[in-house]
């Protein structure tokens, strides 16, 4: 008979090794769809690798892609640590981006040293406000935040389209539903000449470091972990569960808002309704792959971005569909979930041996 038993304490090697192993297995499994698409497997992998590490430009493209994923990954990781299921990072990202273009496109003609911080703070505030509503509904009325945050994504997206056809529409945009460009002094500076990677990456890394420090070392992080692991015991110990949930909701929403700021003020310069190819949702994968650790989010975001950028380049060179990247990302999530199961449980046969 096969029996599944919880392990006493997953070892350190397991908790760090399993995500890495899952990523490797997911990459290996990508050979199956590649073979179906008729691409030569070996050269395809080489091309995928070159697409990320083949040149400075390729590498900078990967970093550019990783930047918003670090923000949305952190948004998911922190909220999930408190068992607050924020599925709404996609919408909060757009709220942050809308706030950025609302004040960054000429309403205020002030120097960059004033304008840029304002864009960042207002963008984060808009994202935070977007998550404050579901958090309030949850703490006050017990509304399931999975449902409210998910549905808010669609509401925000439609609101965005309305704004891009209305108040935010670029009068010089030849009728396209897009916003006016952000003023030059409102843009996040690029890090390297003729590359797209911008200082949003630095901001993301700093924020990740702060998040990691706060989670482990601060009273706020202690309360957050306590509420997430056992809300009943946390409440019994005098921790205000609602206050903890609300504070992490604000921060999670703010981080997602920063992803929008970073994309619009770091990369695109103007806002369209297809700013994010699902960064909010991919952030959930990043957070899970990272084991909900902020430091891990950075590594997971780099991995996922590599897969996207590498698979993109490979699909162009090999003539296979670029949806392959999505497939690898999805498989790595599945591998992580299955791997996490093996980290927590072991499977034994009880027919002969003692369990």
């Amino acid at each position, binding site marked *: 008979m096969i029996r599944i038993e919880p392990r006493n304490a997953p070892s350190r090697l397991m908790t760090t090794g399993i995500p890495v192993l899952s990523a490797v297995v997911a990459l290996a499994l990508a050979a199956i769809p590649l073979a179906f698409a008729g691409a030569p497997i070996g050269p395809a992998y080489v091309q995928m690798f070159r697409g990320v590490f083949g040149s400075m430009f390729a590498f900078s493209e990967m970093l550019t892609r990783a930047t918003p994923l670090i923000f949305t990954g952190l948004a998911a990781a922190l909220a999930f640590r408190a068992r607050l299921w924020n599925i709404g990072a996609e919408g909060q990202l757009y709220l942050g981006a809308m706030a950025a273009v609302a004040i960054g496109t000429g309403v205020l003609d002030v120097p960059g040293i004033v304008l840029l911080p304002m864009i960042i703070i207002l963008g984060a505030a808009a994202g935070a406000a977007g998550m404050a509503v579901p958090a309030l509904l949850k703490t006050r009325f017990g509304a399931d935040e999975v449902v409210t945050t998910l549905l808010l994504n669609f509401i925000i997206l439609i609101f965005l389209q309305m704004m891009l056809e209305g108040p935010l529409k670029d009068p010089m945009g030849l009728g396209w539903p897009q916003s006016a460009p952000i003023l030059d002094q409102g843009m996040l500076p690029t890090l390297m000449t003729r590359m797209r990677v911008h200082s949003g990456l630095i901001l993301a890394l700093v924020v990740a470091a702060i998040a990691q420090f706060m989670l482990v070392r601060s009273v706020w992080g202690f309360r957050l972990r*306590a509420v997430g692991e056992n809300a009943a015991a946390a409440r019994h110990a*005098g921790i205000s569960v609602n206050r903890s949930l609300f504070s992490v909701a604000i921060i999670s929403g703010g981080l997602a808002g920063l992803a929008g700021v970073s994309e619009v003020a770091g990369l695109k310069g103007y806002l369209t309704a297809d700013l994010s190819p699902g960064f909010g949702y991919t952030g959930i994968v990043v957070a899970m792959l990272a084991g909900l650790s902020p430091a891990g989010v950075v590594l997971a975001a780099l991995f996922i971005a590599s897969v996207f950028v590498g698979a993109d380049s490979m699909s162009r060179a090999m003539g296979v569909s670029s949806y392959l990247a999505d497939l690898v990302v999805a498989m790595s999530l599945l591998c992580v979930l299955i791997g996490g199961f093996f980290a927590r449980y072991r499977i034994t046969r009880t027919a002969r041996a003692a369990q």
Partner: protein
Amino acid sequence: MNMDKVLSLNGLTKRFGTVVANDAVDLDLHKGEVLALLGENGAGKTTLMNMLFGHYMPDAGTVDVADADGTMRPLPLGHPQAALAAGIGMVHQHFTLAENLSALDNIVLGAEPLWHPRRNRAGARKKIKGIMARSGLVAPLDTRVGRLSVGERQRVEILKALYRDARILVLDEPTAVLTPQEADMLFENIGAMTADGLSVIFISHKLREVLAFSQRIAVLRHGVKVGEIATKDADERVIARMMVGADTPTTPRTKMTPGAPVLHLSGVSVHGHSKRDSLNNIDLDVHQYEILGIAGVSGNGQTVLAGLISGLQRADTGQITVDGAEITRPNPRMMIRAGVGRIPEDRHHDGIIGAMSVAENMVIERLNDPEIQSRGLLNREAIQQNAERLVQEYDVRGPGADAPARLLSGGNIQKLILARVFEQGPRLILANQPTRGLDMGAAAEVGRRLLVARARGAGVVLISEDLDEILGLADRIMVIHDGQLHAANTRDREEIGLMMAGEHSDEHSAKHSGVSA
């Protein structure tokens, strides 16, 4: 008594790594016999029964069970289904009920095919009613188990085993949550059923009921069967010595004069959804240097009362005063600040955060303490030192202060909670079922700590279903029944037992007074 053998365990051995949980244990059970299995926690009683029931695979040894005709046949080990088919029923210490199903569904669950769950529901109900009538184990069949009290859940567990036509019934601490009368009735009815051929093994810590209701007593210590004795030849001292290997020290309880009141409840009512979560016009006073024992069967309002004192629950009417200051909008934090130390009923669920370290769990109520944090950042060194000191002082055994708290055993989790509570020098201590599930050593330690706190001047509210514990520790006793609190002007267990069952008369209860011990 019919002396046909129905079960024999032969040389059962079980090792977990280097720990020998059971070492070549032999045990026989005869038809119609009630065998008590005694031993401290960790003595290997539950491991032995889990091998019998197929949950664990023994490293050595065999089990023979009599079939319906009385022929002894070897039991295939490691298969719970085989144990069930052989007529072995087990009622676990930790309930194995589905909370969102009704009691009836729980009882028939697994005993009927899954693909037709409503088949012959009326027949099942009739059969259960019959068992209830014979055994006296009454539980509301159509109520969701999640809404039942701990005591009722246990009754459903026993009914579940009886419903499966068990010929051998294993009860792991069956009376922990029953009133003395209910327990007596349970054993009386088990007596009636054993006359019909049922054989019973029950695991218990309560020497009194072991002596009163078993025919034979087997004692395990450190995984070895250290003795077997016919109950008529045993007394409490003999078996206690067999269990722990020495005479148990009884906690000396010196008489003390109660001081100023530390907790005062007047006219407190809570209107809950049902009777079990309601309180009806409660008056209560606890003084310094005093332990107030609150006896009662679970589900009579203890949870609400504990919730009020813990700060988890608000009163609909009435007044709560802690140390002279009225608490208007209670919350746990405010209660902690007012000097109330709380030992929760469900220590796993409310007492600790299993995934966090022992050290973190020890400071979780002190997060605003400048010794623990400054400007919002944790002082990790102080947390570590605090933990190392308390682990020593309170003898918390386990993998260490940095290990997740869930790796501790029940007794050590309780010690962790005691350390956390007593270190803050509480003015008032709420101890809700503080020794439930603990072995004699750990339970004695809890009692000793409560008495030390009392000697220091704390007032203690001790809520317990174990009347022996209340009689042993409390200076004053009140009985909770149906959301009402009555002073017991007696220390007679029969009389208190009657009050727990709701049969108090006004001669026995004067609301505002109690007799001091």
